[in-house]
């Protein structure tokens, strides 16, 4: 396989709070290859967004900091490069789109100005040149009459169109990697389908890699090739999408699938995961999932090993489900 575009090794991101140090990301490894769409899934507070913010060094200061680990991109370690260097990469080689387009666009500047700004800053374009390029990029993301919409303000756009404008801004410098943090969560299903389709198409067209962060397993199944499931700051399972969806082995992943109502009937009913996500400031020793786990036993008091179940399929568990057991099917 080709060299990874992005390689994260042992990332630990921590927040200093009044109640102590919160380990939001606790030893994360991740590899992203050229042209790959990688899904990072988990529930709120699992550390998936903090991972994205760590990559671009957008952590709130001074509370948040990268305590350990390396983020290798382009031969550099993003965890330690200088502020000037990360600014050259941010929005240029790696760009990011957020969940809520209304809060990530500046309401007092026109859409055109905001896209032009990226081009002028990173590509050194002049005003007129940047304007033409901005219109072209808006056209790429499926904005009708792009040149006419350049002078519109964000409030004049619908939610779906705002997200398209965000994507245009992220795409303006033709990044190598696009991080999409819940890009379609705030949108209606029919608009969500349009946006996911757009991201998949653009990825093809420009050969970008996409790191998709979401809580929605449906979205992952639609557009990702590989997926990692996070729980309480750690990746608990990772595999190719087909493999993970047909043979999940970590009890948490299996629990997530069993919590989903499925199109095509109410066979079997919902089997929720009991209990709630533990507080990150106060995790039990060993496996963070043990208190909610039906397969818990003595060993779970110790940190579970990261093991390869079958080639390319890893899980962090003392007692993973048997692959041959067909766990997913029995639960669905």
């Amino acid at each position, binding site marked *: 396989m080709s060299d990874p575009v992005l390689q994260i090794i042992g990332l630990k991101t921590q927040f200093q709070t009044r109640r102590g140090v919160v380990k939001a990301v606790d030893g994360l490894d991740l590899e992203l290859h050229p042209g790959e769409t990688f899904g990072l899934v988990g529930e709120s507070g699992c550390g998936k967004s903090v991972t994205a913010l760590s990559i671009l060094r957008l952590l709130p200061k001074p509370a948040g900091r990268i305590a350990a680990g390396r983020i290798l991109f382009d031969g550099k370690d993003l965890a330690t490069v200088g502020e000037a260097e990360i600014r050259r990469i941010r929005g240029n080689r790696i760009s990011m789109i957020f969940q809520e387009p209304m809060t990530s666009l500046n309401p007092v500047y026109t859409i055109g100005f905001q896209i032009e700004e990226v081009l002028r800053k990173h590509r050194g374009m002049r005003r007129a040149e940047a304007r033409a390029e901005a219109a072209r990029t808006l056209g790429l993301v499926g904005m009708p009459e792009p040149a006419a919409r350049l002078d519109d303000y964000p409030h004049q756009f619908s939610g779906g169109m705002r997200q398209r404008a965000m994507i245009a801004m992220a795409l303006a410098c033709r990044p190598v990697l696009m991080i999409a943090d819940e890009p379609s969560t705030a949108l209606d299903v029919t608009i969500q389908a349009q946006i996911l389709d757009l991201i998949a198409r653009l990825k093809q067209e420009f050969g970008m890699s996409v790191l998709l962060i979401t809580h929605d397993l449906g979205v992952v199944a639609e557009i990702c090739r590989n997926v990692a499931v996070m729980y309480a700051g750690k990746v608990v399972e990772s595999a190719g999408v087909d493999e993970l969806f047909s043979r999940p082995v970590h009890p948490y992943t299996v629990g997530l699938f069993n919590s989903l109502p499925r*199109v095509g009937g109410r066979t079997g009913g919902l089997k929720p995961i009991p209990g*709630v996500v533990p507080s990150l400031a106060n995790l039990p020793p060993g496996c963070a999932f043990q208190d909610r786990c039906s397969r818990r036993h003595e060993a779970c008091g110790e940190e579970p090993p990261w093991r390869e179940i079958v080639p390319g399929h890893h899980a962090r568990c003392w007692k993973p489900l048997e692959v041959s057991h067909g766990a997913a099917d029995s639960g669905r």
Partner: protein
Amino acid sequence: MAQPILVAEHVAKHYPLKGAGFSRRRGRVLAVADVSLSVAAGEVFGLVGESGCGKSTLGRALLRLEDPTAGRVLFNGEDIAAFDPPRLKQFRREAQIIYQDPYSSLNPRRQIGDLIAEPLDIHRVGTPAERQERAAWLLKVVGLLPEHARRYPHEFSGGQRQRIVIARALALNPMLLLADEPVSALDVSIQAQVINLLKELQTQFNLTYLFISHDLNLVEYISDRVAVMYLGRLVELASRQELYREPLHPYTQALLSAAPVPDPRAPKNRILLTGDVPSPVHPPAGCSFHPRCRESRETCRSEAPAFRELSSGRFVACHNR
């Protein structure tokens, strides 16, 4: 079908648009336009639609939390607009509502026990001691502990708070429960817990649910019959099985095909709708879905389709069906 508990006849709700300052802009928002439906006692009636389609406004009109501009709503055969104050107060006991956000629907300065007993206080049911006892019992019913009664809302997670909201809604033994996106603010693993609880309570207390949601999978899971709304109108109404097996309205078809399926091997024949939902201030002439519809014809542009019963219990508003 069982006796309908709730009937809507041609209900419409318009809001006037206020022009800002001296602006002469006038108009109205057609939040709900001509909706007729009936909910049978003991069923779960699902109402799906995208944001701004009027599903919440319709729900509020059905409980007389909004006065409809036109049409009428019957509760057990009585017109709710004609209720006098004592009868209205009685109605407030019989029909309850659960909202989406459990963070904003609980007063942060009151203890859980008092929050749950508040409806009993208002309606003067039992003695204060009996009310506290019932609150403790309700906490157990929704899967919490009686000793939680002395705690405050901030001590609970989102899922637990929604359980508290449900306990409060059940305090007065209602017949009808309107659940407006009851689990949308919760994480997946917690959603399933709350949905299972709602299902159990429905059997235990013989409740009728009006379940409003944008989540098609969830609505399929919990509902007996499902109505689909688009731009203030019902476009389709059918039993759950029929609607999901064979959706008839082009909008329902697109909506179902757009929902992401958590199975990478599922066939992906998505119907991608072009464009956005039009503004309810200027709804398109004719069928309001025609600008995005792949089957639209000349008639669709000029004439609004009637909401017709195609076969028993199966309604659709489309010229091409």
